[in-house]
């Protein structure tokens, strides 16, 4: 709240006639009014409160404490009765095992367990080997399949060319078409190849003239297989 002086200063600036009157209110109220008011209001408030739910019925003492146990007991009894009705012969047989265990077997088992702890095999290691084996099988299947497929294809191609009659097919092609094909693809006929070879070999003869006889003999000695070349192959 603001200090009273601030309020008075403010009102004196706006309306000085009010400031001279002060803040006392001429209304009166009974002195006991504020003493009684809290009690009066509280009475009214509590009357408005909802009444708590109360039941006229009574139940045995500690009913809910034993309730769960009595329900479980009843379930067991009813299940036993159902078994007896559905499988009377089986139900008549005792559930006790006829097998016997050597004396103090379980005690010894425990001792052995403590002395020799079981070997722990990592599951992840077994899984790694399984992964390798699966990858190998897959790779093998892939290679075999591709090999069989590619071999079959080659055989098919070979059979196709064997059956083809190239001579009769070429007879059907006109000379003009053949010439244009040869020109376009810069084809060299077998005759042209022979002429070129002769030209090249002719040059070789000239070059050999410049090599000394000793060098030629040395060359032929080092490359003995050249002596088997027939003479008519060199023009």
């Amino acid at each position, binding site marked *: *709240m*603001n*200090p*009273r002086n*601030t*309020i008075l200063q403010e*009102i004196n600036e*706006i*309306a*000085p*006639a*009010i400031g*001279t*009157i*002060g*803040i*006392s*209110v*001429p*209304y*009166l*109220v009974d002195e006991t*009014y*504020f003493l009684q*008011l*809290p*009690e*009066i*209001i*509280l009475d*009214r*408030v*509590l009357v*408005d409160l909802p009444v708590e739910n109360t039941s006229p019925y009574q139940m045995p003492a500690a009913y809910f404490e034993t309730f769960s146990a009595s329900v479980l007991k009843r379930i067991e009894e009813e299940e036993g009765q159902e078994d007896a009705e559905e499988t009377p012969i089986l139900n008549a047989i005792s559930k006790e095992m006829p097998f016997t265990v050597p004396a103090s077997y379980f005690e010894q088992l425990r001792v052995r367990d403590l002395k020799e702890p079981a070997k722990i095999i990592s599951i992840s290691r077994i899984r790694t080997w399984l992964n390798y084996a699966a990858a190998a099988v897959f790779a093998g299947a892939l290679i075999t399949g591709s090999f069989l497929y590619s071999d079959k294809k080659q055989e098919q191609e070979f059979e196709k060319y064997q059956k083809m009659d190239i001579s009769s097919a070429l007879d059907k092609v006109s000379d003009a078409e053949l010439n244009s094909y040869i020109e376009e693809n810069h084809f060299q006929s077998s005759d042209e190849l022979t002429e070129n070879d002769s030209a090249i070999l002719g040059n070789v003869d000239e070059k050999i003239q410049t090599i000394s006889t000793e060098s030629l003999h040395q060359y032929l000695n080092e490359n003995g297989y050249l002596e088997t070349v027939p003479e008519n192959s060199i023009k």
Partner: protein
Amino acid sequence: MHPSDKDLLAQFSVSSTKEKGFTAIIRKYQEKLYWHIRRMVVDHADTDDILQNTFIKIWKGLDNFREDSQLYTWLYRIATNETLSFLERQKKNATISLSDVGVSLENKVKADTNFNANQLEWRLQLAIQALPERQRLVFNLRYYDALPYEEMSRILDTSEGALKASYHHAAKKIEQFLKNY
């Protein structure tokens, strides 16, 4: 010396001390709220009726009160709303026009057994009752309760600028009334 609002709210929040805490809240704020209402409705019986209803509403709503705002601001807000609702009902029941409301309240002031027209305090009350309802509220909260405009803004849901303007107009009107009386 009254306990702090925080302590009172803590008491009220525990069921075993709820009534004790509420009684302490009434004791702390009953007079402030009483005079806030009384200056608006003039009559004690009406004020008592509105004040009791105000505290019953406070009892019902205090569990949901958000402690991020001040308790007294919230209490003033409830008291103001109850007062305005009461005045609204009175207008409807009496089927009087808005301009006659001030006249009716002036008559109530004059009907007070202690009324003395020569006393400036009574004249001031007559001048206040002649104001429009909103200006009356603003003037009372500022002049008598010395509330900051910020708090008044929260109580009346009005901007501080509008409240300052209302207070200025109200003060000027009162001064004029007093000069002419």
